[in-house]
Structure formats: structure tokens, C-alpha cells
């Protein structure tokens, strides 16, 4: 199997001249935000526009049929990728945020009543928090929050305490985008089901880093974003159990999502089409299909090994820097994400210094403001990686961080 240095060559951005800065190669450590794209993904998108561009579903001509088959093939591929029961359980959206909003507006509207409770955790990205805040406001329901412990893992004792017959939904991340914490999904889901609550897993961070098996997990809904999975932006996925999706009302109305329309009333299609009003991002979905092929080809074994190796290496090297403070969970629960603070230097200043060395890291609240508030800091600096990152990237980052200390001391 190729190592990450060889795999990096699959990603054309790293060889693009205009991306270099003063002769310095691009070091990209912001994959938790969005990943780079391999050549095969870019080619799949241009191929679609060059060889199969037509609108899907209703075309009678060959080109439209070809586009439709390719589009539906990606749906099948996605179902296999997360081991869904049938392709009909896969709904294409714009991104994870839209997938969660789809649920909030359909499941939330239909099933959340006054005094019901929705549980989230303190680890949630705003996208898995704000839509639920709105649902409980609209429905006069309650939002309950699983706190995190000092090791940046969810407090499961607290979870079992707040879980009750009033709980209708548990919306939980599979991997924190701030700390990389992998959450104990099986335990969360089993306990929720015992109380007849449904579980939505926000898989945006984990989907490209660990194997997802929605049937083994027995989660009711699962979301992910193509752009965090080596695929293009503009494609998200909502998985839902067949019988649950069938029960939900549509989210958006218009073309494609109908069975028949008369002047004053309409009958809606079955899932997944019911939830896919309007022309979807067909080109992007073709690219997403290629991204899944790429991940399958490399295999999660290689991805996980690289993540683990790089995480251990980065923790070791970063820890040697004076005044650094790593915000990471225990190694067995850690993903490819390391948040840190460095002395009293504002994370924006750290990121700006690193940028001068063409190193991309994220600095800010990472769409997790309540979490930052709890930690009593305005922001953290964060590195996150994928298959194209190497130990040399970490070495250069450490050198640059030492530079930052010198500048601001």
C-alpha cells in the first residue's frame, strides 16, 4: 500500500505552482474544515459535464438516461459505503447542515410536541445545535445537553441521567470537530432506543476517517458531507431508516419530488425523491461517487493507520514546544484533530504566522461557541489531517510555531 507521501501525489493542488508561497510548498492541515480533492474526483466532475450532461430522471433521450443511471449509481455506492439497507435510504442534500435542517423541519415539525426533549452534546458543531434550538423554540419543547468531562469526552453518566421518556431525539456527533473525540455511539443509541427516542448521528467529521455501518450502529439517521470526504462541495447526505423517512413530510416542494400535480393540489413521491426537490448538484454527486471509490481503494485500514501514526507523532512533537497546551481526548478516543493554545498568543495570530510559511491551520471557535465559552477561551488553533499529510508537515508546523513564539514574546 502507498504511504501518505505517495498518496499526496494524487492531489493536484499540492503540485500547483500558484499555490506555492515564496517557493514554500503548501502544507494543508485543515481537513476537518474541508479536504483536498484527488485528481479522480476532479476528472469525474469534468467528465460528467463533457460526456453525460443532461438533467436526470424524466429525460427520454439516451443522454439523460445515462446521467440518471450514473446519479443513481452514486446513491447505491453511498448506501454500500455506510451499509444502509437500501439505496432509497440515501437522500442527497447540499451538505450536512442542510441534511440536519431537513430533519429538523420534517421530523421536528411532525414529532416534537410541547415539553418533549431533544438531547445534544456540548461537542456539537453549530449545525447540529442551532436547528434543534429552533425546533424546541417553535414547539415549546426542551433542549438537554450532555456535558463534556475534563478529558474532552461526553459525560455518559450525565447522559443516562437526562435521558427520559420525554426524550424524542438524541442528536450526537460521531467525532468532535474541535477535539477529535470519538463518541460512544453504540452505548448512546442503545440507551436512547430503550426510551423509545430516535438517534441522529452527525457523521460529518468521522465519515472519511472510520468505517460507518449504520445498520450495526442501528442509528435512525446519519448525516455526512462530501467535501469533508475528498469529494466536492455542495453535496451532503442524509441517511434515514426506510420506514422513518416514509413517515416524514417533504421539506422542500417543487419539481421532481411529486407523483402528480393538479392545479390546486399535489401528491408527493416516495423517498428519497420526496426529499430531493429541484435539480440536484448532479456534477458534484458524480464527483462524490469518485471520492467514495478513492476512499474504498485506499481503504479505511490505511486511513486509520495514517491518522493514528500522525496523531501520535504530532502530539509528541507539539508537546515539546514550550507553552503549548493540547486539547485532546485519550488516544484511544482521538481522531485526526488536535486543538491547541500557545502561551497567550491569540490563535488568529498563530494562524497568520503559519500562513507566512504556507501552512494552513484553522483558528477560531470552530463553530462551537458554547464549547469555547465553557473552556473560558475565545478560540483555539487547530490542526487536522487526512491521507495526504506526512510527518514532515508536522515538523514544519512545529518550526513555524516556534517562530510565532519568538515574534510575540
Amino acid at each position, binding site marked *: 500500500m502507498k504511504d501518505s507521501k505517495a498518496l499526496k501525489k494524487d492531489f493536484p493542488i499540492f503540485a500547483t505552482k500558484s499555490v506555492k508561497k515564496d517557493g514554500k510548498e503548501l502544507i494543508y492541515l485543515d481537513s476537518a474544515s474541508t479536504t483536498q480533492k484527488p485528481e479522480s474526483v476532479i476528472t469525474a466532475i469534468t467528465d460528467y459535464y463533457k460526456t453525460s450532461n443532461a438533467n436526470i430522471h424524466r429525460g427520454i433521450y439516451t443522454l439523460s438516461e445515462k446521467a440518471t443511471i450514473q446519479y443513481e449509481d452514486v446513491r447505491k455506492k453511498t448506501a454500500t459505503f455506510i451499509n444502509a439497507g437500501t439505496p432509497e435510504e440515501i437522500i442527497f442534500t447540499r451538505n450536512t447542515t442542510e441534511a440536519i435542517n431537513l430533519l429538523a423541519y420534517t421530523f421536528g415539525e411532525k414529532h416534537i410536541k410541547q415539553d418533549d426533549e431533544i438531547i445534544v452534546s456540548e461537542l456539537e458543531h453549530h449545525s447540529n445545535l442551532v436547528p434543534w434550538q429552533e425546533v424546541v423554540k417553535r414547539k415549546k419543547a426542551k433542549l438537554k445537553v450532555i*456535558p*463534556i*468531562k*475534563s478529558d474532552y469526552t461526553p459525560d455518559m453518566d450525565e447522559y443516562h441521567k437526562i435521558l427520559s421518556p420525554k426524550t424524542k431525539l438524541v442528536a450526537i456527533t460521531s467525532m468532535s470537530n474541535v477535539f477529535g473525540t470519538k463518541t460512544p455511539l453504540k452505548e448512546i443509541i442503545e440507551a436512547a432506543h430503550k426510551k423509545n427516542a430516535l438517534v441522529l448521528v452527525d457523521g460529518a467529521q468521522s465519515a472519511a476517517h472510520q468505517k460507518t455501518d449504520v445498520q450495526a450502529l442501528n442509528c435512525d439517521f446519519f448525516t455526512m458531507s462530501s467535501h469533508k470526504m475528498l469529494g466536492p462541495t455542495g453535496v451532503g447526505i442524509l441517511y434515514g431508516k426506510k420506514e422513518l423517512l416514509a413517515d416524514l413530510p417533504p421539506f422542500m416542494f417543487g419539481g421532481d419530488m411529486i407523483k402528480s400535480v393538479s392545479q390546486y393540489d399535489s401528491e408527493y413521491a416516495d423517498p428519497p425523491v420526496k426529499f430531493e426537490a429541484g435539480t440536484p448538484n448532479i456534477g458534484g454527486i458524480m464527483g462524490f461517487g469518485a471520492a467514495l471509490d478513492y476512499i474504498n481503494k485506499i481503504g479505511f485500514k490505511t486511513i486509520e493507520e495514517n491518522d493514528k501514526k500522525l496523531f501520535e507523532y504530532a502530539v509528541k512533537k507539539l508537546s515539546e514546544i514550550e507553552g503549548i*497546551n493540547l*486539547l485532546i481526548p485519550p488516544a484511544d478516543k482521538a481522531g485526526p484533530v488536535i486543538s491547541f*493554545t*500557545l*502561551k*497567550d*498568543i*491569540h*490563535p*488568529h*495570530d498563530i494562524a*497568520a*504566522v503559519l500562513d*507566512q510559511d504556507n501552512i494552513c491551520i484553522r*483558528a*477560531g*471557535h470552530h463553530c462551537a*461557541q458554547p464549547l*469555547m465559552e*465553557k*473552556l*473560558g*477561551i*475565545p*478560540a*483555539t488553533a487547530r490542526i487536522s489531517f487526512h491521507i495526504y499529510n506526512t510527518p514532515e508537515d508536522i515538523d514544519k508546523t512545529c518550526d513555524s510555531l516556534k517562530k510565532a513564539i519568538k*515574534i*510575540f514574546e
Partner: protein
Amino acid sequence: MDIYTEIILDYYKNPRNEGPLPDATTCAKEDNPLCGDKIRINLKIEKDKKTGKEKISKATFCGKGCAISQASASMLTEKLIGKTPKEIEKITDEDIKKMLNIPISPAREKCAILCLHAAKKALTERGSAKKSAPCPGCKKETASGRPKRI
């Protein structure tokens, strides 16, 4: 071009006019939730004995944030002293960028101009009911550092 010029770093490390202003006549806070920057500008406005016109006699800032926001606030307070409220109204975001004399990316623009917006807010809010109380002291806050034990 480097954004962390000697001047910026000097104002960041040795801020001028930082701290509370016990005899302030007005003050206002602005924050940038995106990066957690918080700046409060404290002003003492007095009538000039000769001209009878209102003038800023003292200006300080409190807050936390990145080097750009802190240096900008410190530099601005120096600029404010001696000016009339009307003159301050005329200061633009562009003027702040010129004052800093560094290339400011769109993402950092907010950091740089936060202080000016706080100063203008302090002027518009003065005399209003919520400003009748004296401006509070400066809380000791850090830009980053160690997170709290949970």
C-alpha cells in the same frame, strides 16, 4: 509584506492607554464573535476652556484579542485624544487601515476596525440612560492561554 511589523508588535507588547478610565464620561464595547475579540473604548469628553468646544481629553481601551486588534485599539486611543466628537465621526475604516500600514486580509479587517466602532458607539450612546453609570473597570482577560479545567 509582513503584517507583524515592528510598530504593530510594539503597540501590542507595550500598549499605550490600556486600562480603566475612572473619570470616563462615556464608553462602549464591541466584540467580534468570530474570533472572540472584545474591545472597550473609554473616553473622557470635556469642554475646551478656550473654544468652548467639546474635546476628548482622555482615551483608554480595555479588552482582549489578537495582536492586530490590540495594537489598533492602542494606536487609535492616541489618535482620539484632542479630537472633537465630530472629528471622530469622520474617521473611516480606511483611515484605520492607513494608520496600521499593514496588508489587512478581509478576515482580519474586523479585528482592525473593532476599536473605531467601539469609539463611535461610545459617542452615540453618551448621555443615554444606560451610560449614566460610570464605566466599569477593566477585567483582566487573556487572548488565549490555558483553557479552564472543566
